[in-house]
């Protein structure tokens, strides 16, 4: 068993799966962003497709529902000229790993080249990459609370395009950090790419223990936490948090942490506001801010396709080099 960060790299340090932002070098993360940047220009053309994945079969394997993420992966694959198959698989809790493995082996036998995997269990994408189908490139589209690396990278691209650089920036992530795979992937990417400070803001019930160990500084108060921030990232709050005694109510959460124009004024005047979507207006963020001129929420969506094209192209190329070298050997 190897660390997730190692499983995703070839021996010469290229991407063959994309499982987590943890442990990836600054050069590699920058390469992803640069590649994505180059795809943004192709996206503005009348003919948006490039032939990088022509003849390849990509399977969207969503064990957890997500229309938005799935569609952006689908579009990304199509714009790379790949054949794409969408599978929504309801998870069977009783049959343990068996169904998962049988499904994957069947798809592998159909000569699939890449799986885009969304799963409710932390480590699921890593498990598949290491133990089930190591010769299929695995792109993690979200595993439990662990990682959502393509979302984090599109957020990095957003910051880089709107704030020139990530280096030296103060970034605050607000809300339910405990359950957030997005936050974990963002923290690693931000640290590696040179952010001056990464802050997490929320009530004690929604901040995981020992978050400092990941390099993030916890705050319980928006005024202190947002002071001097260049970037404010709001996270989505799930309704079930109220039933689990983690929060008293949406209204109290909004009062303390909901992003209003007043609270945004604690940050730097040129701070940008981000959200991975879908947003709960009036819970995490008020409409005036979500639709305001500091918000880059819709830009994030556009960049999402370019970032997914970039990691799919890079992982496929790494995996292909590996297969070719094995065949030659």
């Amino acid at each position, binding site marked *: *068993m190897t660390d*997730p960060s190692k499983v995703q790299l070839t021996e010469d340090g290229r991407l063959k799966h994309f499982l987590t932002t943890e442990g990836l070098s600054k050069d590699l993360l920058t390469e992803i962003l640069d590649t994505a940047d180059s795809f943004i220009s192709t996206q503005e053309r009348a003919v948006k497709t490039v032939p990088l994945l022509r003849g390849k079969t990509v399977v969207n394997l969503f064990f957890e529902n997500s229309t938005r993420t799935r569609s952006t992966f689908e579009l990304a694959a199509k714009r790379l000229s790949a054949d794409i198959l969408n599978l929504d698989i309801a998870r069977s809790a009783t049959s*343990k790993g068996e169904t998962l493995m049988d499904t994957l082996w069947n798809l592998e036998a159909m000569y699939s080249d890449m799986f885009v995997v969304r799963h409710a269990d932390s480590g699921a994408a*890593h498990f598949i990459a290491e133990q089930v189908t190591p010769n299929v490139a695995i792109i993690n589209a979200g595993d439990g609370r662990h990682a959502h690396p393509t979302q984090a990278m599109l957020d990095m691209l957003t910051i880089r395009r709107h704030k020139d650089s990530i280096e030296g920036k103060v970034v605050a992530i607000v809300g339910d950090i405990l359950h957030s795979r997005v936050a974990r992937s963002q923290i690693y990417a931000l640290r590696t790419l040179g952010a001056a400070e990464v802050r997490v803001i929320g009530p004690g019930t929604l901040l995981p223990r020992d*978050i400092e160990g990941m390099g993030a500084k916890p705050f319980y108060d928006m005024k202190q936490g947002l002071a001097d921030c260049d970037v404010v990232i709001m996270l989505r709050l799930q309704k079930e948090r109220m039933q689990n005694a983690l929060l008293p109510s949406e209204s109290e959460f909004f009062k303390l942490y909901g992003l209003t124009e007043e609270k945004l004024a604690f940050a730097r005047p040129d701070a940008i506001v981000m959200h991975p979507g879908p947003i709960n207006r009036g819970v995490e963020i008020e409409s005036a801010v979500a639709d305001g001129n500091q918000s880059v929420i819709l830009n994030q969506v556009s960049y999402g396709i370019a970032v997914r094209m970039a990691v799919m192209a890079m992982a496929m190329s790494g995996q292909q080099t590996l297969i070719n070298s094995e065949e030659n050997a």
Partner: protein
Amino acid sequence: MRYLHIQNARIIDPASQTDTIADVFVANGAIRTIGRRPDAGEIEETIDATGLWLLPGLIDLGGHLPEPGFPQKGTMASETKAACAGGFTHICSLPDTKPVADTSAVIKLIEEKAAKAGYARVLPLGAMTQGLAGEQLANMVTLFEAGAVALSNVRQPIRDSYVLRRLMEYAATYDIPLFLNANDLSLSDGGCMHEGPVATRMGLPGIPETAETIALAQILLLAEQTGVRAHISQVSCGRSIRMITDARQRGMRISADTPLANLLYTDAQVTGYNSLYNVQPPLRSEADRQALIAAVAAGDLAISSNHRPHEIAAKKAPFSDAESGMSQYDCFLPMAMTLVSAGELSLDALINAVSVLPAQILGMAQSVQENSAFNAVLFDPETERTITARDLNSRGHNHPALGRSLKGQVQRVFIDGQQIC
């Protein structure tokens, strides 16, 4: 009389404070003399034990046996043979079989199957509550009379403090010992590893230390009030050790054990999502591990196996979806010996924790001295080998020794004077 003659063994028996090289003469299931030939009788067989250690047989305070109910995970024969290979002469079987060991029929069935297999002696633990549901008391006296050595609810919760109190009062009336696991399910439910920095980083739901300590406080207070004979099974936190020590200082007679895995590993093993290390109780922090080691070194804490064999499919799943537990019987003694070679435990402290203390807790005599029943292990401390699947007797290949090189090997196991393997 015809004797078995074990020649030149290093006898290590903390119970009699013995560590000496001598000859042992065994007849009719017991040790007749040590260091001198018996006055009469002839030698039937001589075993040259030069360079080998003769230790009291290991006694396990809790392992999961797959029969009845889980044929895909192993058989009574495969697991009790694995136990012998790991140095055990006696093992307590946990009652979470299918059906649950809450009737005398199941206790008898376990005993019969174990006797038929003919390897390690199985001492069944009965269920404290019917179906382990934590609601209604099991027929405690009936179970005890049928051969259960103590009663356990494994890690299943007792409904509330009221039921636990009555259960203890009832058991105390008949002096039935209880093996209690401290696990507050409202705090541990949904968790699959120790709550700490590793869980945060891996995004895995954690089990906080308080899931154990809150339940332990409840157990200790009610045990004190009811005067029941209580043993705490599978302690994993350093804080729990301090609470148990406090209780002893108040005069309570309370014993405890920890699974071997919690002495060997910490939550750092989970990095990489290796489902082998998905165990209950969870592997905790290095500070917890150190506190458990210190308690074993002080002679206050026994070591149990928490053996739990699984078929491959049960473990081949994303970490939180995999079934918890580790196969532990094979190689148990060599694995435990790594603590001695690492300088963390003395050999005496280790033997004390795997044999002497468990015997005391169960009210058994287990010692390598004259006139004791011959339940012992001949151990070769030097041989080094790499463990492969073929070396495992257990059907559960979810074993941490697989693929690693281990020093030391159990050569022979004797139960009541008979060589079992």
